[in-house]
């Protein structure tokens, strides 16, 4: 058996590991930095699309610049302020806006708030749109969810989200495909726990909205 030198057994592996690590981390960091702006833009557009969708405003999908334009025209970000004067907080600062004031149609104002709750596997975050008196939903969009693909994750399908438009809480769940009253929501067959989680979030959001917007209105 040949004894290897101290250099080959101790120093070289450490040296090699350091070099390899530096090289690969540099490459990964470089790619990360070069796409960072794009990722941030994606996220901001994603958020804006959610707000517009929840408010029921049409926008062309996949055209970030037009979405940006519509958003700037229709949506005003309102920060939480003790005074409750929505005008004073119109310019968005550092923090997340407390709620969004949306011009639904000429002279008609609505609001969008973000809220979250526990789903089956993880947190569900959604944007809810409200009419001016906070009694009727104008729509809903899920921003974050980790429900079972094909079952609970069907909450992100259009038919499920569209059913919230014009609905008034408190809601009850009915069998998939049978909701017609203003307080009835279609549940998803095979995803009872997710349906219940969404029901809970939807019933609680009215209070959240009242709390956030109540003073600013």
């Amino acid at each position, binding site marked *: 058996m040949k004894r290897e030198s101290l250099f*080959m*057994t101790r120093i*070289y*592996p450490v040296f*090699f*590991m350091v070099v*390899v*690590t530096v090289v*690969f*981390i540099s*490459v*990964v960091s470089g*790619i*990360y930095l070069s*796409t960072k702006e*794009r*990722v941030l833009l*994606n*996220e901001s557009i*994603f958020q804006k699309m959610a707000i517009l969708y929840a408010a029921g405003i049409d926008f062309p999908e996949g055209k970030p610049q037009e979405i940006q334009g519509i958003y700037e025209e229709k949506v005003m970000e309102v920060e939480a302020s003790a005074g409750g004067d929505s005008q004073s907080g119109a310019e968005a600062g550092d923090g997340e806006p407390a709620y969004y004031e949306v011009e639904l149609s000429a002279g008609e104002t609505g609001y969008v708030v973000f809220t979250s709750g526990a789903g089956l596997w993880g947190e569900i975050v959604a944007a809810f749109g409200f009419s001016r008196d906070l009694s009727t939903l104008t729509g809903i969009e899920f921003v974050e969810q*980790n429900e*079972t*693909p*094909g*079952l609970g*994750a069907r909450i992100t399908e259009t038919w499920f989200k569209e059913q919230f438009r014009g609905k008034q809480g408190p809601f009850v769940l009915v069998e998939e495909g049978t909701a017609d009253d203003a307080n009835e929501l279609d549940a998803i*067959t*095979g995803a009872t726990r997710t349906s219940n989680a969404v029901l809970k979030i939807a019933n609680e959001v009215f209070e959240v909205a009242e709390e956030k917007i109540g003073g600013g209105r």
Partner: protein
Amino acid sequence: MPARGKAKKTFFEPMGKNNPVFAQILGICSTLAVTNKLENTVIMSMGVLFTTSLSGFTISLIRKLIPSRVRMMVETLIIASFVIIVDIILRAYVPDIWKQLGPYVGLIITNCIIMGRAEAFALNNPPGLSLIDGISSGLGYSYVLIVIAFFRELLGTGEVWGITVFGDWWTNWSIMIMPPGAFFMLAIFIWIVKGVLMRESEEAAK
């Protein structure tokens, strides 16, 4: 000529009798997890294909420099780098699919197929051959997953790639898109391949 023969063998073995999924039973975690929707499966397969081929190639390039006692650390580092690159690119260019795949992309790092091929093949073979081996291992993994995902999505939702195939008469087999469905489909797949197709070739070989 023998080089070409070896390349051919390297390419076709992981497709059939040495398939990573149904012969070596590797990468089962992701096989079970992502196969309930065809679209997600295809993106996942592309991620694995990219990682197996490029990590095999890279490890093979520096195989003579890697000290054997830290080789696994080096392999993991290289594999992880490629996976993170996949993750970053998906996040920047197809954010919708990135959101759906969630943690699974990161979990490619722990896919045994990639580590297995690095250990068993890339460390002992030249870069070109390792690249071929990586591509074919990735493809061998992909086609099994795509077949499983096709049937799971079809039976579980009546759709393929989100397009309705069966009409209203079809009752969705919800169990197919839940985790147990993956075990059933994979077992049936292995049963058919090993029990019917591979038995014939074994008998022919005798």
